[in-house]
């Protein structure tokens, strides 16, 4: 199993460690629920160094990235970040990712579990004057998330953080170490992600905890990362999206720029669009004490004979104290207010389709 630059630190903090994406990662330090609420109410720090970083250089890099991703790279400004995904020709999703535009290169940040697959896919589709470099093993990634994130980091850097807009980035020093400072995250809170050389990760981690003391900053594990993103109905690759789902049914039409010109998967996605979507990824809220979990079957309310879909992600929201879930349901059952039932290990629980995100930050 691979270690991040901070694996031993997590162990020393008493974290429960699990294997994730081939790395030994902290799933929780104290309690998933407490960590979740700390991020919602103040600020927390995540080690997400398992994420993959591919640098794309060469004179034809823009055309290449534009062809392998669904969002419009031409519309991406220098210093801006774009959420996107890569599709197979049949429209299935290879991975979702972030695209960063620098003056002389493009950075692709992919899911840790997909690094090898994505790398092979990109290599296979390489065209023209384009070079790809995998720097996953050299880079550490810390996510500082929560309403106090800016105030934790600002004392450590001369870069005026308030001037970095949501989904923009810049380069500068944090705690005296070179960092790519990105105003992004996977929690629905304001926050930043810092890309650092492995050798600098510990220094910056420690500086963040010193600076964050007055905000009661805490380390946050992957367990809370999952429930935080789920409250925002953000997709998790492997759960909510994969090569059997296409971006439109996954609710990713907003990043799928069918008018931008040719890209891999476009024709199939256009065909799906023309034929009409048969199913949609919706947000569901459970009545009573139900705890939705990945893989539970969904039924049309009052008809428990044939399953109409499955829960792809589920939890009990620590903020709402209700069972929340994402799942694919037939289009005719996808409207807000549609009633469904979920088979919870033999017990039927009532659910309904609700507006998402489940949670909206109050600031």
């Amino acid at each position, binding site marked *: 199993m691979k270690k991040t630059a901070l694996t031993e630190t997590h162990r020393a903090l008493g974290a429960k460690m699990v294997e994730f994406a081939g790395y030994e990662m902290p*799933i929780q330090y104290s309690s*998933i629920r407490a960590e979740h609420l700390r991020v919602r109410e103040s600020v927390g720090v995540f080690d997400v160094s398992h994420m993959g970083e591919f640098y794309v250089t060469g004179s034809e890099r823009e055309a290449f990235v534009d062809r392998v991703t669904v969002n419009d790279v031409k519309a991406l400004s220098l210093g801006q970040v774009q959420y996107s995904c890569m599709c197979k020709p049949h429209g299935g999703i290879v991975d979702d990712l972030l695209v960063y535009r620098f003056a002389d290169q493009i950075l692709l940040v992919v899911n840790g579990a997909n690094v090898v697959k994505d790398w092979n896919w990109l290599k296979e589709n390489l065209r023209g004057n384009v070079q790809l470099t995998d720097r996953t093993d050299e880079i550490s990634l810390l996510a500082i998330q929560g309403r106090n994130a800016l105030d934790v980091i600002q004392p450590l850097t001369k870069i005026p953080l308030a001037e970095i807009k949501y989904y923009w980035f810049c380069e500068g020093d944090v705690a005296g170490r070179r960092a790519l400072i990105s105003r992004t995250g996977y929690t629905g809170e304001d926050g930043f992600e810092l890309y650092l050389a492995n050798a600098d990760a510990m220094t910056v981690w420690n500086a963040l905890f010193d600076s964050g003391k007055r905000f009661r900053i805490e380390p946050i594990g992957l*367990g809370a990362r999952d429930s935080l993103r789920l409250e925002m109905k953000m997709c998790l690759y492997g759960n909510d999206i994969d090569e059997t789902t296409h971006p439109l049914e996954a609710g990713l039409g907003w990043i799928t720029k069918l008018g931008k010109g040719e890209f891999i998967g476009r024709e199939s996605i256009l065909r799906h669009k023309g034929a009409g979507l048969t199913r949609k990824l919706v947000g569901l809220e459970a009545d009573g*004490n139900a*705890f939705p979990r990945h893989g539970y079957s969904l039924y049309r309310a009052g008809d428990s004979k044939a399953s109409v879909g499955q829960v792809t992600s589920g939890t*009990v929201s620590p903020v709402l104290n209700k069972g929340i879930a994402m799942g694919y349901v037939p289009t005719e059952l996808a409207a807000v207010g549609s009633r469904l039932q979920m088979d919870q290990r033999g017990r039927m629980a009532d659910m309904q389709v609700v507006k998402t995100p489940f949670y909206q930050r109050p600031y």
Partner: protein
Amino acid sequence: MNIPQELLYTKDHEWIRIEGDTAIVGVTDFAQGELGDVVFVQLPEVGAKIEQEKAFGTIEAVKAVADVYAPLSGEVIAVNSELNDHPELMNQDPYGKGWIAKIKASKLAAEKARLLNPSAYADLTSA
């Protein structure tokens, strides 16, 4: 790992405090740690007849769902309804305020042999 010496245990991670012919049942410190934050507890009904090693309740926790198995056959004579509003008691005080049910055991003498003593349970959890 907290494994009180005065209790008995099951391989399914329940603890049992025997007092005469009644037994108080809960889940162990090890089990609550593995489950993570307990969110809901589905308790048995008072008066329910239960059978040793059959499920008689369910714990819904953040990381997993787990059935609670009856450590002894008998009748449920009390349940910890405090868990309905404060399921976190199972995490905070698994051997005390996090207890689940009180059972009037009907076959105690015969069934007790299937329970684990503290050192056997310690071996099980360290394996």
